[in-house]
């Protein structure tokens, strides 16, 4: 209780409140503009937050992360273009509703379901905290190594139909973090006698290149577009009443969002698909799905909004990010010498509670903001895409150059920008590179520190959590092989879909 009060006190500062407002409202706007997503915004703002207090910087980034999906639902429903990656399924039912003249109903339902999912996720997080505080100290070096390894495997396997590419890019990420002077043996690794490579390749430079610059190049090399969304008439609170009729779907979808959000590498997409399938299977009107079913819309929005809170669990408790956005946030912790992991729950529980309360507040702020500003957002959607590209380029400069005023960083990030553009054009995932870099670094450090206590390889898994993680790794691989064999036998593999290309904004 003391920590909870201390956490609330942490937020009772003007700079934190401003950061929360800027983050949550900015996040909604960013989410609503197709072509810019939370990843671009967080990548650009990351270096600027380094000079702020950890709670201020984290609140702002968390605000963007948690609120962008609310905004993303608007273009998904109104113009059939998901504002952020995770609103893809929202457009399946949201847009047909708009075509039927029910845009207002769809938008207000999407907000209500998002709010339900968001709050459900946070309450789960709060309820789980005591359990986490109990379990987290049981994670030593070998457990964190195994959890990071599981994360890498899941990230690769989650990209169904693109596993070879995802594996290749994840390994590239792991390789990238090895470049430079080895911190233990002081030997050079892949520096090719170039002095700028001795200090290694900075994660922020890669993130800015792959997410922000690549998006600018993508927009600037594609034909100009200016999406047109019509204003919405009616009270936005109507969706709350309708949501109450579908509490079961909303709760199960949020639950799936929480569970899958906690598992590194799976996240919003899997949660959405599972919730959507569940909602369809248990619906009285399954034929309406894809043609404007309110239940489908609720399942999709409740599931994806429950994920951000849940994704904080592996990040805060173990220091393991499950996807690109939490990987970026990890660097904010590191810069301020607050190392997420088991110790955070013992030494900085007030910060953890502060973040939980910030999450609750941001959901309320966003909901209130959206009730009054949906029509303003429909105007913002109309920004022409190439103009947006120019602005992203200018903003990216601040991000890259303010890091250490290095022209080499600018050139490197431009190079990664071109690589990101190629990956986006080819419908290949970017996230494995980032997670490879972050999780690869964690794996190397943790394996090294675990070594002195290992006499035989079996010692690696002689503790309960380590053994469970090891079994999970085997299980995940076995299940994947089983699926492959099944597909091979039926001669009908899942056709890959186009959804991944929205995963990178």
């Amino acid at each position, binding site marked *: 209780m003391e920590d909870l009060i201390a956490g609330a006190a942490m937020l009772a500062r003007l700079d934190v409140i401003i950061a929360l407002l800027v983050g949550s409202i900015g996040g909604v706007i960013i989410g609503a503009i197709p072509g810019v997503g939370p990843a671009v915004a967080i990548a650009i703002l990351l*270096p*600027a937050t380094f*000079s702020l207090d950890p709670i201020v910087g984290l609140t702002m980034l968390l605000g963007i992360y948690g609120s962008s999906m609310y905004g993303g639902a608007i273009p998904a429903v109104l113009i059939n273009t998901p504002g952020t990656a995770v609103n893809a399924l929202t457009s399946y039912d949201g847009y047909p509703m708009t075509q039927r003249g029910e845009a207002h109903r769809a938008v207000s339902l999407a907000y209500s379901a998002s709010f339900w999912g968001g709050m459900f996720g946070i309450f789960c997080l709060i309820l789980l905290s005591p359990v986490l505080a109990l379990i987290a100290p049981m994670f030593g070096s070998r457990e964190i190594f195994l959890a990071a390894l599981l994360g890498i495997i899941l990230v690769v396997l989650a990209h169904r*139909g693109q596993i*070879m590419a995802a*594996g*290749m890019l994840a*390994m*590239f990420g*792991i*390789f990238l973090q*090895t470049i430079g002077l*080895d911190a*233990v*043996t002081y030997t*050079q*690794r*892949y*520096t*090719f006698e170039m002095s700028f490579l001795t200090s290694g390749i900075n994660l922020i430079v890669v993130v800015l290149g792959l997410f922000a*610059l690549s998006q*600018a*190049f993508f927009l*600037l*090399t594609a034909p*100009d577009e200016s999406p047109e969304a019509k204003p919405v008439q009616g009270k936005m609170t109507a969706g709350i009443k309708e949501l109450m009729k579908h509490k079961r779907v909303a709760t199960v979808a949020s639950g799936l969002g929480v569970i899958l959000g906690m598992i590194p590498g799976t996240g919003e997409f899997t949660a959405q698909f599972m919730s959507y399938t569940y909602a369809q299977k248990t619906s009285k009107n399954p034929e309406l799905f894809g043609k404007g079913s309110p239940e489908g819309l609720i399942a999709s929005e409740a599931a994806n909004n429950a994920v951000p809170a849940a994704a904080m669990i592996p990040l805060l408790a173990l220091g393991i990010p499950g996807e690109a956005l939490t990987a970026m946030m990890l660097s904010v912790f590191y810069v301020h010498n607050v190392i997420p992991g088991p110790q955070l729950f013992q030494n900085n529980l007030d910060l953890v509670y502060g973040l939980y309360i910030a999450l609750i507040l941001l959901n309320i702020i966003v909901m209130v903001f959206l009730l009054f500003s949906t029509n303003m957002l429909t105007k913002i959607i109309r920004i*022409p895409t*190439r*103009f947006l*590209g*120019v*602005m992203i*380029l*200018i903003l*990216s*400069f*601040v991000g*890259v*150059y*303010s890091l250490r*005023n290095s*022209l080499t960083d*600018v050139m490197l990030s431009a190079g990664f*920008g*071109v690589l990101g*553009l190629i990956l986006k*054009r*080819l*419908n290949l995932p970017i996230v494995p590179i980032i997670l490879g870099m972050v999780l690869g670094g964690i794996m*190397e450090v943790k*394996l*090294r520190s675990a*070594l002195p206590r290992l006499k035989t390889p079996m010692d690696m898994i002689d503790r309960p959590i380590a053994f469970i993680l090891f079994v999970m790794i085997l299980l995940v691989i076995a299940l994947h092989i089983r699926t*492959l064999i099944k597909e*091979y036998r039926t*001669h009908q*593999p899942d*056709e*890959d*879909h186009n959804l991944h290309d929205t995963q990178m904004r």
Partner: protein
Amino acid sequence: MSRVKNLQVLFKRYRRPGDIVFAWVLLAVSLFLLSQIFDQTAYKSGKKLFAQPRFWPAVSLSLMTGFAAFHLLGSLLSERIEGRWREVWLWVSSLEYAGWFIGYAMLVPLTGYLPTTIAFAVLLVLRAGYRSRAALLSAVASAFVIVLLFKTFLQVKLPAGKIYDALPDGLRQIMLNYF
């Protein structure tokens, strides 16, 4: 024959034109990096295998090469999609914008953050094909707001332009500190 077809089906995935070019390039890069493993990493005698500085580059590059080879196999077994070289040309043409970006970064320490950002925004908006007065004014306004937000208010660490030295005393100090 049917086995080949099944393998094709197994590796088939949603592809875009140019995939095979990327697959070849990535395989070549992986092989090159792997071939440098003995030159570019050290082996410390007396240390355990897992603690060797060579261990993680070797593991990651070997697996990357393996995955790249299978990725290429997948591309080779899939149907060819028209427009491969047109797509590659688009990748190459993005280098122009990378050049703009690097040029902008090179100029800021000389010509100052505010003037360079406004000039860059206007020129790039023109390059992107906009000609209307509204677009140009929006570019200037947006550039100004970005400078105001990051440099003036957030005091983000960016170098002051050399050009500001030529300004009169009072104005010079303001420009050096805030723009």
